[in-house]
């Protein structure tokens, strides 16, 4: 049966690079030109071990970049992949960030921990489409200076946007002029650009909740704030039901939701 007719069938892809970023985090570069919108995800698997949904950390490049944290069986096995190994991919899935609706407006990006992977896709997109947006403010939060992900891109991002970095603690040292505290505190302490703005958030539930509240307190309306949710999922096509948040399927209706769509369930 053709792969296109059977959504469950993944396709083999070669690993080009497996870059260890921190003890638990690694970046896989896969040999496949990939058409995707920022914020979408793929199902990546190793046959015999299993499948995991991973957000795409690149956009419109001739390779596919995934940032993965070793937390379960599949991700730990993927962490041991070497260049030349095959992994299996299906996707892309999900709606992605509202890049079109955000055109002509200011952009505020807020990410924490692994959430920066999804925002990295937005940065790729902005680099190619910078003139479509007004001011771009990219807030990134890490636990400490040893947990920095995509640090090698920060200078490149700073060519076309403001990047503000927070570290939960400076005890392990500092980097990128980071401030100490949660990224939500940094958002609260920063003067936001005037005019129409769209905010896109990705990170752990508590980080999104606090950062979203900070933005709302600073005058953004709920319709201006988008969050990217993470849930357990198997099918990625809206049938296995594990990723449901109320009536919404994270895999199909999300993973990016407008703040007011989920308010009843996540707040």
């Amino acid at each position, binding site marked *: 049966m053709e792969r296109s007719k059977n*959504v*469950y*069938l993944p396709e083999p892809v070669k690993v080009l690079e497996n870059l260890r970023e921190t003890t638990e985090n690694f970046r896989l570069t896969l040999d496949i030109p990939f058409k995707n919108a920022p914020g979408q995800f793929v199902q990546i698997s190793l046959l*015999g071990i299993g499948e995991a949904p991973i957000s795409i950390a690149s956009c419109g490049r001739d390779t596919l970049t995934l940032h993965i944290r070793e937390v379960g069986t599949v991700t730990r096995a993927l962490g041991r992949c070497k260049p030349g190994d095959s992994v299996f991919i299906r996707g892309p899935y999900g709606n992605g960030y509202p890049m079109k609706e955000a055109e002509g407006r200011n952009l505020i990006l807020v990410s924490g921990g692994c959430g920066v992977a999804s925002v990295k896709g937005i940065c790729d997109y902005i680099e190619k489409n910078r003139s479509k947006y007004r001011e771009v403010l990219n807030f990134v939060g890490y636990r400490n200076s040893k947990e920095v992900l995509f640090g090698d891109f920060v200078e490149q991002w700073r060519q076309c946007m403001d990047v503000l970095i927070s570290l939960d603690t400076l005890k392990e040292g500092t980097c990128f002029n980071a401030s100490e505290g949660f990224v939500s505190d940094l958002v609260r302490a920063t003067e936001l650009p005037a005019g129409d703005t769209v905010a896109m958030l990705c990170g752990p539930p508590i980080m999104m909740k606090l950062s979203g509240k900070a933005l709302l307190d600073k005058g953004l309306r709920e319709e201006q704030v988008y969050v990217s949710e993470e849930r*357990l999922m198997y099918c990625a096509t809206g049938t296995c039901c594990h990723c449901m948040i109320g*009536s919404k399927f994270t895999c199909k209706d999300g993973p990016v939701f407008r703040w007011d769509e989920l308010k009843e369930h996540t707040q």
Partner: protein
Amino acid sequence: MYKLEKKELNNLIVSLAGTYQVLAPVRTDVVRFQEVSDASDIDLTENSYVPIKQFFYPQQETLFTFSGNEVKVPIKEAGPRVFFGVRRCDLNAVAHQDLVYLEEPKNPYYEARRKNAVLIGYHCAQPANPNCFCGSMDLKDCQDLMLVERPDYFLVEVGSEQGEKLVQQLSKHFQKTDEALRPEDKKTPDAEKLVTTDIARFYNNPEWETGVKWCLSCAACTTLCPTCYCHEIQDQVESGDLTKGCRDRCWSSCQLKEFTRVAGDFVFREPRSERFRFRIYHQIEYYRERYGVTMCVGCGRCISYCPTKIDWVSIVNRMVGNGKK
């Protein structure tokens, strides 16, 4: 409208069995759908314990096998099958699973099993189960043929082109009749037990807590539900050769804590009451938002076969009675 004499039923089953695999409710340990070759095996006195979803969407199935990086898909189209004596609730349940698995992107495994199935319904003149409430749900006619029992014969209402074709093929067993269906032949009396399906306003009602005090998280409700369609996907490997194995899909249940567990051990619906509420909301509200009908068909299995008899219909009715928000 056609008529099928009761004494002709066995001949019909024998004729059908020439072309089709005929599956009908049979009393074994419980009543369940099984292959029959004789009408005397069929038991129409109560609804089957196990719904027929397992024939289209089995509890476990292999999505593909692999050897190294070679992948093979084992989809085999099911041969022609007749399901005889399916109640209106279960017919609607099949239609509701069709909405999920035959919308794009179609589930090719489900389609291959569902494609050649003919559904012959059996109307419930009495509730088939003390807890059923199909009269409260908005059920439709979605059978190929429907049998309505009269003392000596069945009235046979044609519900689809496929049904008409079947009657034509086996015309020697059927007679034309002018007798019309009565209003009670379309609804089961005393089956309007759920007061409302408008439950959005009860989301924060404290009854969700009290109602679930006895839940064991055993998942009998979702396993025996004819509409529940959630699943998970797992890889299996051969013990002697780890490069060979298969990727399987199997039923899951939103009543289990693991259902929403993500990396980092975070569970999104930890309390049982939230999982219970989710099940009822999915059945009544969430599915309707997407597909335009309630997923629940009112068969009552989740109440009858709950080991602690959690009766969510009474719980929702209590919320209406209390008028609390």
